[in-house]
């Protein structure tokens, strides 16, 4: 059935094929680390907690922090 419809409309998109979970996992871990670091620096660094000394991270990200929804002052 799928074969017939695929042959009759050669330009239609193929049936969706899922990416196996074991291929996904390492990238999911990498992506999670990436988003945690980015959201931490945009949303919390030199506000609630501070890893880098000074106030410049807070000052630079300040307006974005407010507008993206993170608590500030």
């Amino acid at each position: 059935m799928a074969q017939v419809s695929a042959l009759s409309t050669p330009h239609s998109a193929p049936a969706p094929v899922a990416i196996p979970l074991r291929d996904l996992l390492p990238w999911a871990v990498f992506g999670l680390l990436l988003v945690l670091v980015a959201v931490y620096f945009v949303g919390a660094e030199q506000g609630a907690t501070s890893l880098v000394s000074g106030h410049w991270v807070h000052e630079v990200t300040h307006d974005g922090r407010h507008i993206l929804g993170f608590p500030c002052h």
Partner: protein
Amino acid sequence: MTARTLLVRGMLVGVVAGLLAVAFSSLFGEPQINNAIAYEAAHTPPGDHEHELVSRTLQATVGLAVAVLVYGAALGGVFGLAFAFAYGRLGRLGARPTALLVAAVGFVAVYAAPFVKYPASPPAVGNPDTIGRRTALYFLMIVVSVAVAIVATLVGRSLNRRLDTWTASLVAVAVFVAVVALAGLVLPAVDEVPGDFSATLLWRFRLASLGTQLVLWTTFGLLFGALTERSLRRQADKTPQAAAVG
């Protein structure tokens, strides 16, 4: 189509979405931030003003762009990975509707649901002494909301074996709304708006924040879906017999 391709595509789409969101927030958000800072300055005793490390002009342009672009690229990357998980696991749903669905769920789980409990606030709203508590509560709300969204999706998928897709989806949405509403009820409230702060200004700022996030996620969904659909069609055209497999 690999997870790596989708992660990279998600980050690139995230940069484009970030640029659109920067444009939107400069037009609609910055005027409200400036009004709030004017209110703040009027209520600070003279001589109590902190020395500016980064000028207001720089904060409102380069600073805004850096923050929103970093956020857009990072969330776009994770969006690409969420798409990589969802695609092919939602029946015959194609790339474009899958991308839009993932974006809608992401917008609600990452921003809209936490916003209902702890809405975005302009400068001068919020006591500097409670920043630690407010940040912890906001991040907790995001973690709860995202975790419940993932669990609800898996519940809906497993119910889909016995129930039809429409009913299973409604149950998943109901699970999400019920658990997140309960979390909102249990978590402590944050109300630090000064008594004489303009309600109109607060409303406009919050709308601008909501709009900025909506621009981001809509772009994720539509642009990522369109690019992925195009690359899938190209692959199918190159290997016509592949269309019959699976």
